[in-house]
């Protein structure tokens, strides 16, 4: 990305900034808008926030729309024009996309934030999101299938709820939904299974580097579809679904179990191990996307010192630049800490001081 222009995005009223093709550092105090810059870049690639923030909250206070423009090459421009609740338009070189999902994966991106530890500490939803995020960037078909599955699932659950209220159970309607879930579920299950198998070695390699070859780690894909077809599962859980008024089996319940030294990471991992684990996951995601797409994703590193000490950060930046990670954006609260490390490695870097929605 050569240049970014923001209008009314978060605390930026009007910003225009040019980047280094290698390494870009945003420094400044907390709450000044460093992360907002990373979020704008992420939004432009994925058509939504990395943090699950809704569009309304992205608009600068007092404004009713926001606009993000990124020039990715001389002749490659992406523009997002969003009026929350009214319009959400993405344009590539002045041509609007019919559907936003067509844009996802066009410009691959990986964002690493302190909150990533939720991948381990929170429920399975976060881990499915990680898998889905990666696969969506690789294959538009995957995202389409996932959206179909989720829509049918929502209707099925609404139907179960309605039937619970009225007391009349319409078996044929549930059967209709079951039939519609099968094909997308199978597609998603196969894609996830294949992905985990291919992703695991990449992840293990990164963990070895980051943790200095400490323990054996693994990620195990857990899905009920492993042993039975969704058709059977839905039938077996019919009574349960009726009572709970929601769908209790399916790929929306899949999980990815993290293992360290043969034990569950959640219970046995130390804080340090947890942070290294998550960082390795994200870097492996980057590497995986790069290999599959034959195109380097943008790498957005938010508050990296939160995860690692000074020595490790130096090691990481060395690793990133050595292996040619493409274009990197980093934020930090200390002006000099990052610069000192970066100077040793980077040949082409730019520092931006962020203050109250402006770059000075």
């Amino acid at each position, binding site marked *: 990305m050569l240049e970014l222009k923001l209008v009314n995005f978060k605390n930026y009223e009007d910003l225009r900034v040019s980047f280094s093709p290698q390494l870009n550092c945003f420094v400044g105090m907390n709450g000044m808008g460093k992360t907002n810059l990373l979020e704008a870049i992420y939004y432009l690639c994925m058509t939504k926030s990395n943090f699950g923030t809704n569009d309304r909250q992205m608009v600068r206070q007092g404004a009713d729309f926001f606009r993000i423009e990124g020039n990715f090459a001389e002749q490659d421009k992406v523009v997002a024009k969003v009026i929350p609740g009214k319009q959400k338009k993405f344009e590539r070189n002045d041509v609007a996309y019919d559907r936003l999902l067509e844009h996802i994966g066009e410009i691959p991106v990986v964002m690493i934030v302190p909150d990533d530890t939720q991948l381990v500490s929170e429920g399975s939803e976060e881990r499915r999101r990680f898998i889905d995020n990666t696969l969506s960037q690789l294959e538009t078909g995957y995202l389409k299938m996932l959206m179909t599955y989720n829509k049918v699932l929502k*209707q099925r659950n609404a139907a179960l709820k309605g039937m619970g209220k009225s007391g009349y159970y*319409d078996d044929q309607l549930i059967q209709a939904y079951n039939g519609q879930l099968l094909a997308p579920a199978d597609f998603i299950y196969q894609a996830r299974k294949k992905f985990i198998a291919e992703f695991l070695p990449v992840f293990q390699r990164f963990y070895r580097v980051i943790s200095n070859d400490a323990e054996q780690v693994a990620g195990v894909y857990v899905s009920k579809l492993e042993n039975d077809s969704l058709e059977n599962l839905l039938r077996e859980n019919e009574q349960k679904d009726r009572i709970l008024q929601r769908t209790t089996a399916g790929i929306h319940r899949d999980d990815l179990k993290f293992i360290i030294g043969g034990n569950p990471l959640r219970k046995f991992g130390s804080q340090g191990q947890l942070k290294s684990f998550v960082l390795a996951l994200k870097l492996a995601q980057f590497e995986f996307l790069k290999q599959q797409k034959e195109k380097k994703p943008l790498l957005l590193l938010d508050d990296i010192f939160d995860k690692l000490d000074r020595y490790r950060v130096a090691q990481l930046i060395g690793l990133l630049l050595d292996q040619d990670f493409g274009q990197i954006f980093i934020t930090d609260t200390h002006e000099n800490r990052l610069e000192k490390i970066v100077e040793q490695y980077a040949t082409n870097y730019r520092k931006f001081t962020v203050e109250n929605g402006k770059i000075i």
Partner: protein
Amino acid sequence: MNFSSTLIEEAVMAFTALPGIGKKTALRLVLHLIDQPGQTSEQFSEAIVKMRRNIKHCSICHNVSDAEICAICTSPKRNSQIVCIVETIRDVMAIEATGQFNGVYHVLGGVISPIEGVGPDDLNIESLEKRVHDKKVKEVIMAISPTIEGDTTIFYISKKIKDSGVNISTIARGISFGGELEYADELTLGRSIATRLPYQDTDK
């Protein structure tokens, strides 16, 4: 907007209650009617009142109708053994405009969508079942939107009527006429390949 007359204001408000008409358009229409002789407005309002008072829904197919049973259902030229199932009255008009269909219709009044609070009971499905079971219907054509909700509805109805032995078909889905393959989305193109048709010389 400041109107010098409450009469005009009321008329403008009445027009803006219609879909797709804003205040400016409404005012233009009202001013136009003022320019015309009073008779025009009278005929206009009479036509609307008369239409609204007398319009019925056909007791067989639920299409709009002047009489108890609509002109399509009563026509001796139509083949009542073929029933085309559609979502709305507008779909009837669209298919009629093609001039390609000689059977009769059944208007559901929507598609199944529990999220929107529309269940099978809210649609004209029961009367369809009866129709298929009682009368000698040979074929049912599902002309329903290719959406998730549309698919659910097709699936549901086909389960309900399949025991009667009726033939069930759906309208073809695929590349639109005059469209170019290159621009078709993958889902449509993939489906068109999978459900390809034998070539006929007469295809036009």
